[in-house]
């Protein structure tokens, strides 16, 4: 199932359950998969048209009135375009607005560089008081939606719209503030989030065949980051690699580095190397921007070789 369909379904449940829930859109209801909800909740879904700044501050106004607004648009417009509105209208007063940015990074595919946020996590992460969550697959997103709703305060949900390879199965116990250990290992900790999680797991499998044992942590909540789990794992393995669909500046890599600032471990990165995106489909973009399983394998080897005690 496409993640946008999961998102829309779960949002429908929230709208059903709580008359305080409101959805705002900026001419991307169709793209976000929520157009169908409008008939069911005509008094609580509003299209602001192509005016994201207004949408963000209207969300703040609604939240100040006691409502629980979700605002949605493509990731670039949900972050860098409305950065000041996120900071001053929403986060400074600590208002309960959920910001949904769809198709971050290379997930924007054919829309190309203008729509590819390589910096959205960095932009949002440096604003105080906002939680950043990035789902991996359908099961995780479904588990997260009620948790994001229950969390009182600003949230940035960074979500690819398309169907994603399954990583989590039945019986998955989701904790918004805890990273998930997808695989236990002893030689290297791989911290990964979002749509490259399957690639990191495939890389860990390939590395196991050559004798490198990787622990894979899915850091779905990038802020506040689960320092405890990351530090504990890094201390056990002695080396860390971050893998993300984002610039290596400012995103997951930076967040993990900050978490490990007092630890004596090398921290390597697989991510977009401080450049803009380009048009293409994922099978082209992943190798073009250095986000394949092979890139993870190579960086993992280097990280293990770089262990300070070697």
């Amino acid at each position, binding site marked *: 199932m496409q993640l946008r369909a999961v998102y829309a379904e779960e949002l429908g449940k929230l709208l059903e359950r709580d008359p305080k829930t409101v959805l705002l859109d900026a001419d991307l209801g169709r793209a976000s998969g929520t157009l169908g909800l409008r008939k069911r909740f005509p008094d609580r879904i509003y299209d602001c048209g192509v005016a994201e*700044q*207004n949408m963000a*501050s*209207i969300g*703040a106004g609604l939240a*100040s*009135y006691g409502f629980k607004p979700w605002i949605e648009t493509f990731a670039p417009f949900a972050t860098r375009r409305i950065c000041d509105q996120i900071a001053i209208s929403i986060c400074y007063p600590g208002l309960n607005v959920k910001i949904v940015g769809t198709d971050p990074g290379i997930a924007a595919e054919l829309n190309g560089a203008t729509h590819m946020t390589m910096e959205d996590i960095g932009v949002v992460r440096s604003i105080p008081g906002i939680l950043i969550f990035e789902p991996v697959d359908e099961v995780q997103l479904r588990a997260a939606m009620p948790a994001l709703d229950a969390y009182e305060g600003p949230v940035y949900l960074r979500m690819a719209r398309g169907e994603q390879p399954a990583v989590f199965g039945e019986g998955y116990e989701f904790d918004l503030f805890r990273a998930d250990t997808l695989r236990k290992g002893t030689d290297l900790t791989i911290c990964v989030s979002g749509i490259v999680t399957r690639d990191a797991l495939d890389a860990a499998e390939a590395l196991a065949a050559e004798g490198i044992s990787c622990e894979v942590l899915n850091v779905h909540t990038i802020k506040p980051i689960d320092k405890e789990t990351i530090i504990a794992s890094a201390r056990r393995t002695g080396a860390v690699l971050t893998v993300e669909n984002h610039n290596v500046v400012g995103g997951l890599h930076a967040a993990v580095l900050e978490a490990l600032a007092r630890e004596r471990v090398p921290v390597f990165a697989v991510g977009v190397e401080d450049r803009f995106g380009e048009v293409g489909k994922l099978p082209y973009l992943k190798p073009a921007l250095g986000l394949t399983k092979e890139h993870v394998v190579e960086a993992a080897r280097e990280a293990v070789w770089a262990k300070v005690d070697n």
Partner: protein
Amino acid sequence: MNCNLKDVAREIRCDVIHSIAHLGVGHIGGCLSVVELMAVLYFEAMNIDPKNPQMEGRDRFISSKGHAGPAVYAALANRGYFDKSVLLTLNQGGTKLPSHCNMRLTPGIDMTTGSLGQGFSCAVGAALGAKIAKDGARVYTLLGDGECQEGQIWEAAMFAAAKRLDNLIGFVDVNRLQIDGAVAEVNDVEPLADKWAAFGWRVIDVPKGNDVEAVSAAVKQAKANLGGGKPTMVLLRTVKGCGMKWAEDLGPANHNVAVPMEEAEAAIRALREEA
């Protein structure tokens, strides 16, 4: 409330001048230009309760020109939200009365503002909230004329009319000055009446925006608009620095300026003598 609005406005004006001069510096011009509006809103027009600032279904006021904070604080103190002595902590470290409005710090402040353009959208959001809640509340909001240069203002203007938010009453403080000079010279926003009308708003033009009776009449007219399907914009043609000759004479320099206590005392004396 049963009171003489002219007396109330004078008290608010004296408190604005005194609190800013006590600190020594502040946005004196754009605070003094909106004093009459503050008197009318807080002492006549709005359904509010100073003893219960968070009252359900209350009317809201959002100063999108966040730097009018000191004028709002003076009105709140006079209305009984907090003691007048608090005004003397204005904009000092640790104060509950910062230069720009903060809903988490000050009792009676309904929204955090200071980044121009945003507060107006927030007010539109609150008006939408009142419509969804069907609680009959009105939302009042204040813009600067220079602030109308922000693109976000017009995004919000379009939305409020499109969604028929007739419970929203806006004011533009048309004092014709901004930091770099005359608004007309920096980046002209006129004709404001035509612009707001073209965006689907009902417009009330008040040539004497510092005449408390004219403001009161305009607000009454705006309030009668509920149910008309259109938001209302009241254009208050004001004087920046109004009621303090020293500040008026500074022109654009009165936006954010050092205010000597002797000038303040002279101005307050003159205001009291007038009464």
